């Protein structure tokens, strides 16, 4: 037999976790707690061993949960009627609602600092909706990583996982490379948990998901679900000098003004918990009508929804540093343009966070909407600030133990993750191909082309058949071009993987969006502006079949769910 070691460094483990943000670390801790005898290995392209990896290490520290003043059942109904519009997996949503308070206690026991009132009760801002928002120290992953290491979890930093390995129909590990020195790494594993984030198309600062996990799952044959909702969109500030600050204000959506009129109220009356496509529709329609430039009036915001946010002092300090860099605000009123964020997170998982490929699990932002827990929305937080983290903890705490039990069972039957020499060699050639090309398009150019295709408001948010077909044509061309990318070094090689994942994700988004001939939640179609419960209480599924992207629908098992939309009853 040919020696695998001649190809790269070989690592063997029981549970391999790709990505060490809040979801990956939660999965690692709970997998190890479930089965201390198992080897649990986290691999991340950043420094996860110290808690500095992922969006999780850059949050505002908001953590929403169903407080003791709220009825979890009311939370479920609110989410169904106002956010997910019955595209939710209601059983998972219910479990989420009932477990949110225990989750706050569990993460505290891992060392995560949550601001509390005297007497130890968690402090939170109460929304006029069935939840509240607490404040945690944004250094939480530092604490979680230290706790995981104490339990014996191993963490390898600076390695980019490029692809998954399969043995027959099941996952048998993964391969990747060190982003600094380029060495090749082979991970043999009985079970793999993807926890490597969503797809943000490198548009809005700090929203750093590049969809590597979505792409890896798709290439391995896993089904995707709810890809048409991967379109969170905020507003970017236009500085008077013409600079665009894509920092994701998260605040402008209720306070948009055109020629002195509050157009947010005109299009979306009342108080909203966060952004959605209708806020963008207001900007778009008023701009088309010649009423631009559209301004955000943050002075109005401060007086109203400001009271729903409380921040940990560490989060405030980070924010004030960033604000100072973003060119000083001369005024609380400034021009805005839509700031696309993306958040495609469509890897389909069941209640155990299992994907449709045996041995492959997915937790956190990579499978946020694929779990269908939140319904017609992109990866959380979507419309509830502070549920990105809650979701990452929730999914990690479910997927970790399930993956451990799975790995333990395989061990009992001596089924180990084994790497096949030929497969590892072929993957190596594919992974390093952009380093070996003499010339080729740069990954950055590919990424800019994807951004041009998806980020404009009338493409990625306000959709129509005609415009989506144009976008798809562009994306198909970009996917072909991206076959000939040239990487200058290993940092650039990681960018090549991003630049392969981005057009693939964009294609899933547009193909799913074209099929759904209605509007619902974060999916808004100008040509089908109404919600259609008669025909569209369905999930859209995307899957690779022999190199073709196949799109189909799956009925939602409404008969099993306690709540039905009025129009069905």
């Amino acid at each position, binding site marked *: 037999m040919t020696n695998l070691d001649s190809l790269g460094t070989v690592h063997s483990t029981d549970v391999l976790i790709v990505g060490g943000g809040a979801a990956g670390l939660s999965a690692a801790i709970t997998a190890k707690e479930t089965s201390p005898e198992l080897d649990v290995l986290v691999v991340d392209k950043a420094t996860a061993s110290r808690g500095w990896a992922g969006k999780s290490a850059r949050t505002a520290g908001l953590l929403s949960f169903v407080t003791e003043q709220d009825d979890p059942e009311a939370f479920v109904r609110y989410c169904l009627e106002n956010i997910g519009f019955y595209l939710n997996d209601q059983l998972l949503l219910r479990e989420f609602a009932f477990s949110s308070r225990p989750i706050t206690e569990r993460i505290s026991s891992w060392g995560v600092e949550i601001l509390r009132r005297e007497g130890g009760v968690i402090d939170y801002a109460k929304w006029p909706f069935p939840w509240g928002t607490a404040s945690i120290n944004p250094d939480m992953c530092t604490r979680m990583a230290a706790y995981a290491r104490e339990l014996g979890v191993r963490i390898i930093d600076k390695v980019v996982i490029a692809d998954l390995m399969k043995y027959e129909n099941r996952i048998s590990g993964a391969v990747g490379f060190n982003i600094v020195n380029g060495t090749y790494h082979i991970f043999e594993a009985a079970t793999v948990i993807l926890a490597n984030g969503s797809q943000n198309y490198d548009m809005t600062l700090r929203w750093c998901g590049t969809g590597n996990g979505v792409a890896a799952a798709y290439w391995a044959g896993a089904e995707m679900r709810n890809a048409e909702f991967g379109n969170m969109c905020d507003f970017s500030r236009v500085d008077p000098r013409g600079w665009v600050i894509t920092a994701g204000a998260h605040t402008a959506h209720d306070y948009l003004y055109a020629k002195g009129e509050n157009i947010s109220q005109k299009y979306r009356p009342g108080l909203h918990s966060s952004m959605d496509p209708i806020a963008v529709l207001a900007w*778009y329609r008023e701009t088309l009508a010649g009423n631009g430039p559209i301004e955000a009036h943050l002075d109005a915001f401060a007086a109203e929804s400001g009271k729903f946010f409380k921040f940990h002092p560490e989060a405030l300090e980070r924010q004030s540093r960033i604000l100072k860099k*973003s060119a000083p605000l001369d005024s609380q009123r400034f021009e805005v343009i839509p700031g696309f964020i993306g958040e495609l997170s469509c890897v389909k998982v069941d209640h155990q966070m299992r994907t449709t490929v045996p041995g492959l699990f997915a937790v956190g932002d990579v499978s946020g909407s694929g779990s269908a827990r939140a319904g017609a929305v992109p990866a959380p937080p979507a419309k509830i600030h502070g549920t990105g983290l809650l979701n990452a903890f929730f999914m990690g705490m479910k997927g970790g133990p399930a993956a451990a039990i799975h790995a333990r069972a395989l061990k009992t039957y001596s089924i180990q993750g084994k790497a096949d020499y030929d497969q590892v060699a072929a993957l190596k050639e594919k992974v390093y191909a952009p380093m070996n090309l003499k010339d080729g398009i740069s990954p950055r150019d590919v990424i800019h082309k994807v951004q041009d295709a998806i980020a404009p408001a009338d493409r990625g948010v306000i959709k129509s058949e005609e415009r989506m077909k144009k976008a798809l044509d562009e994306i198909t061309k970009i996917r072909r071009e991206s076959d000939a990318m040239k990487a200058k070094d290993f940092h650039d090689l990681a960018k090549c993987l991003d630049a392969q994942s981005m057009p693939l994700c964009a294609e899933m988004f547009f193909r799913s969006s074209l099929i759904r001939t209605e509007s619902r939640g974060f999916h808004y179609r100008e040509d089908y502006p109404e919600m259609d419960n008669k025909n569209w209480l369905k999930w859209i599924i995307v899957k690779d079949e022999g190199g073709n992207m196949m799109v189909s629908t799956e009925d939602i098992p409404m008969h099993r769910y306690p709540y039905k939309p009025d129009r069905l009853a």
Partner: protein
Amino acid sequence: MAHSIRIDFDACTGCRECVDSCFVDVIRWDEDKDAPFGAYPEDCQVCCVCEKVCPVQAIEIIPDWKSKYIPEPVSEKERCGP
């Protein structure tokens, strides 16, 4: 132009905190000079965490907002009126 990652080498103690804290591989360690440097400033996300963790305030991020690639906010500009 790109964002600039300015390091005060006289103050820097070489603790490598900034290298570890950067979540998008912007700051690297220069083995020859035995010091950190901004290897990929164009990828900087202006999160300022590197500044925050530096024990001696030796690192400073100076953003260049014009360097960020921004697609058109509307693809069909002609529909946008005057």
